[in-house]
C-alpha cells in the first residue's frame, strides 16, 4: 500500500487514488494535423523506465484533483514533481 502525498489533502493510502500513467503527454493542439503513426504514438506509446518516472495520479476518494509525482519504479520512492523540472523540458 503506497502512501501518496496529495498536494492538497496530504498523505493518503494508495486506494484513495487512481493512476493516470505517464505525465506530460500533452493532448495535441490539433489531432487532425497528426498522421496515423503520430496519433497512434500519442494514444498508445508511453515510457516504461526502471527508475524515475513522472506520473499522474488523481485523488478520487478525496479532493478529485490531478497531480504529478516522480516515482522510482524500482523502489516506489515518490517525490513531488517539481515545476522547475517540468519547465526544463
Amino acid at each position, binding site marked *: 500500500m503506497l502512501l501518496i502525498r496529495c498536494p492538497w489533502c496530504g498523505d493518503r493510502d494508495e486506494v484513495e487514488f487512481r493512476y493516470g500513467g505517464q505525465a506530460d503527454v500533452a*493532448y495535441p493542439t490539433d489531432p487532425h494535423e497528426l498522421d496515423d503513426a503520430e496519433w497512434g504514438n500519442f494514444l498508445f506509446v508511453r515510457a516504461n523506465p526502471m527508475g524515475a518516472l513522472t506520473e499522474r495520479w488523481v485523488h478520487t476518494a478525496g479532493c478529485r484533483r490531478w497531480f504529478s509525482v516522480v516515482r522510482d519504479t524500482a523502489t516506489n520512492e515518490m517525490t513531488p514533481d517539481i515545476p522547475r523540472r517540468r519547465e526544463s523540458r
Partner: protein
Amino acid sequence: MMSSSNPNRLNASVRSGRIDRTRVVNCTVDGTTVQGRPGDTLASALLASGTIEVGSSVHRGRPRGILTADCTEPNALVQRLDGCPEPMLAATEIELYEGLEARTLSGVGWLSGERDTARYDKKFVHSDVVVVGAGPAGMAASLAAARSGARVILIDQHRELGGMLLDGQSHISGHPATEWVGRAARELAENQNVRVLTRSAVLGCYDHNYLLVAERRTDHLPTSSGAATRQRLWHVRTGQLVLATGAHERPLVFADNDRPGVMLASAVRSYLNRHAVLPGRNAVVFTTSDSAYTTALDLLSSGARVPAIVDTRPDPPARLVEQARAAGAQVYPGAAVVATEGAPRISAVRIRGLDTGGALNGSPVDVSCDLLAVCGGWNPAVQLFAQSGGTVRWDPVVAGFVPLNTGGRSTRVVGAARGTYDLAGCLAQGFAAGAEAATVAGFRIAPPPVPQVDGDRPGARPRPVWAVPDESRPPEACTDHFVDLQRDATVADIHAATETGMRSVQHVKRYTTISTGVEQGKNSGVNAIGVLAETLAANSPGEVGTTTFRPPYTPVPIALFAGRTHGSLYDPVRTTPMHSRHEQAGAVFEDVGQWKRPRYYPRSGEDMHSAVLRECAAARTGVAIQDVSTLGRIEVVGSDAPTFLDRVYTNGFANLPVGRARYGMMCGADGMVLDDGVSMRLAEDRYLMSTTTGGAAKVLDWLEEWLQTEWPELDVYCTSVTEQWAAVAVVGPDSRTVVGRLAPDLDVSAESFGFMRFRETVLGNGTPARVARVSFSGELAFEINVAGWYGRALWDAAMAAGADLDITPYGTETMHVLRAEKGFVIVGQDTDGTVTPLDLGMDWAVSRRKDFIGKRSLSRPEMLREDRKQLVGLLPVDTDTLLPEGAHLVEPDASRRPPVPMLGHVTSSYHSAALGRTFALGLVSRGQERVGEVLRSPVDGSDIEVEITTPVLYDPEGVRRDGPAQG
C-alpha cells in the same frame, strides 16, 4: 518432586518458570488428556507430561519430536479440533487453554468445511516509531522512543514482553533481567502514546513503512469466549521502523538428525526457564558456537546430566570449557555427532572427531542420552528487513545473513536481528536506535545510558557445519541427513537437484520443496543454502544467496484477511429512495454496479419470462413506471460549459436551447464508446448531464481529467448530483394521463410539451419537480425528477395517479427488452470497449462539423476496415428460440473443425411481447451489408439459424413517440 501428571515439571525451587502453578489446565491431544499450567504452550505441556514425540513425517513416516519452542517448528504441527477446526498450527505457538483439543499431524491437516463463526476484524493505526520484537533490544528501543513523546507501537509475537530474557538467567543492574522487563513493560503500559501489541506477528512489511500485523486476541482463551474478535489485522503506517526481530537458531544436519529427542539448544533453555520443564534428564549438547554452553549449564543446574558437549570448533573458549567441566560436563572439541540411535526416542549418539577440513577422524565414542540439544548457529531474523527493501549479506564472523545496512532512512535493525548476540550490545543498539528514530520523527531525545549487565557476552567465532559427513556414505547418498524436516528433504535431495543442473537457490528450493512448509525456511533455509554452497563448491553461503523473503512471516488464516468484509459488508449495496417500495412490491433485484435495481416484479405464480412479457405489454399498451434514480447525474456549470460539452460529446450541445434535452455519446481518445446519456440545458451556463448507472464515477473522473489536465483555461465546474435526484420514468400511451394528474400545473399535451423538452413544476403533492419528455422505449414517456428525499412520495403519488390505469412497475429486464426492440444500445452490454459510434450505426450522433475527443481515432486505418463488427438485429429463424447472450455467429457453411472463423456474437437477446417472437442484437463483421443473410450460431452442439436484420425492429417510423392523438 514432580507431579504425576507432569513428571518433567521442575520444582519451583529449581525453576520458577513463568507459569501459574496454582491452576491446572486440561486439554486433549490425540484423545488423551494432557495437563498443563497457565503459561504453558501445548508443546511445553506435552513435554511436561513426558511426551516429546509428535506426528510422524509426511512422506517417510519417520518418528518426529518437538524440535523448537517457537514459530520455526517443523514437526509439532497439530490440527485444532475445538471450535472451528484449524490445520497446521505449531504446538510450540499454541497457548494452553481449558478445553483445547488437538490432533497431531503428519505434515498435512484438513479444512473442516464448517463455517468459521469467529469474528475477525481490522484496524488502521499510525505511529511515529514502530518497534518489532520485544526482546532486550526492542524493549530498549521502545523505552527510548517513548520517552521522547513520540507515538510508539511495540509488537511482539508472545504473550509477554522480554524475548530471550525470559529464557535465561541474565541480570541487569544487578537484578534478574525479568525485573527490568517488568519495569519496562509497566513504563510502556503507562505511557498514553505507546501501544503494545502482544500475541501479534508482523506478517509483512510493505512499501512506505506499511505493516500488517496479526493479533491473536482470544486464541489463548477457551473457544466459548463469545462474540469477541478472535484475531485482528492491524494496518500500521509508521514514520520510523525499528526491527528487533531477534534470531532463530539453526538445527544441525547429520545422520538421523530427525529422531525425537533432538531439540534446538535454545528451545531446551526456553522450556527450562520459561516453562520449568525439563525436556530430558541425560542430555548431550552438540554445538557450533558459544550459546549452547549456557543451555548445558542450565540443564546441569536443573538436575539433568550432561555427559557430553560436542563442539565443532577445535578451540572453544577456555572460559566456557572450564565452566562446563566444573559443572560436570565433558567437552569434545573439534568433534561432531555423526549418528543417533533410539526407538524411536533418542537413546545414544555417536561422536567423532572433525578435522579442520571437515572430514571425520578419530575413533567413535558412543554416549547414551535421552536428549540431544543442537545448535547449528543463529539466523538473524531478516525477513521483515528484506521485505522493507533491505539487502542482506553473508557475515562469516557471525555465520549468518545480516542486513547490509542497519540504519536506513526510516528502518533500523538492532540486536540479534543484525547478528549482535550479547545483552549489553543489544541494549545499547536498542536505546540508540529508539532515540534516533524518535529524533528523526521529530521528537528529539538522547539515548538513555546502558545499564550494567550480566548476561550473554560477545561470542567467539562459530564454526558452522552445514552437513556432518556420514560415516560411510557420500553426500549424494545422505538420505537420512534431514535439511527440511517438514518436507522430509535431505542432503541427498539437494545433490539430486544440482545433478539435474540447477544452480540457483530459487530453483533448488522449488525442486526439493525445502523451505516451502509452514516454517518457510526459518528453520531449514540457511542450512539448505549452506549445503548447496558446499555442493556447488562455492566459497560461502553468501555466493549462493537467499531465496526471497515473502509475506506472511507466519501462517495466517485467510479469514483474517477477509475480516468483516463479507455478507452485507462485502461491497456497498446502493439503494434508491424508493427501495422499500420495490421490496414491498416483491421485486426481484439485480446488481447493476453496486446498485440494487428491480429486475422484474413477479405477480404470484409468474416467472421472469411471463412477468417481463406483462410489463412490456403495459409499457406498450397502457402505462408502466420504472425507478430510474440510479442514473448518474453531473451538473456542468460555467461560461465554457457549452464548449466543453461539445468537446466531450460526439454530437453538438452548444446549440442546444435552454429547456431542451439531447442524447449524447462520449468516446475515449481511442474513439471507442465510453458512455452515453441525456443532458438537459438548464441555463445558458448550466447543464444537467446524465450517465449510465454504472458509468457515473468514471465519467466524472473523465470530465475532471480533461478540465484539470488539458483545458484548465475553461470556466467549467462539474458537480456530482446523482443522489440529489430521485426519478421515475412513466412510460406508455397512458403516461400523459398519469403525468397530467401528477402535475396539474403542467400542460402535458404534445403540442406544448414536445419530445426532448423539460419543464419545472410543482407536483400536486407539493413537491418541486423537473419533468422531461425522454424515452428509452420508443413510447410516449416522461421522466420526473424530484429531490431524493421526495423519491418515495413521488413513487406513491405516481402509483396512485395511475391506479385506475393499472400502472405497472417494471424492472431492468423489461427496460432492456423495450430499448432493444428499438435498437437502442446499452453501453457495456452491446459495447465492450472495442466499439465505435460508427460501428453502432450511430453516425447521426457523430458531428462532422466540430472536433471531439476521439474523433481523430475514427479515421485510423483500423477504424476504416470494412470487416469491422457492426451492430445488427438478429432474428432466430425459429421464432421461439432464444439465443444465449455471448453466442457466436459463423457462416452457414463454415467448417465444423476448428479453427472456425467467428463473424460476431450476440450482445442482447430477449423474448418480445410486441414482436411475438424472440430477437437479439449482436455485433457482426460487415453486419450492415449482411442484412437479409442467414448465419449459424452453434450452441451446445446444435445450430441455431439466425437472420441478420437492421437493429430497429419495433416502430421504425417512430410514430409512437408522441403517444395517441388526444381528443
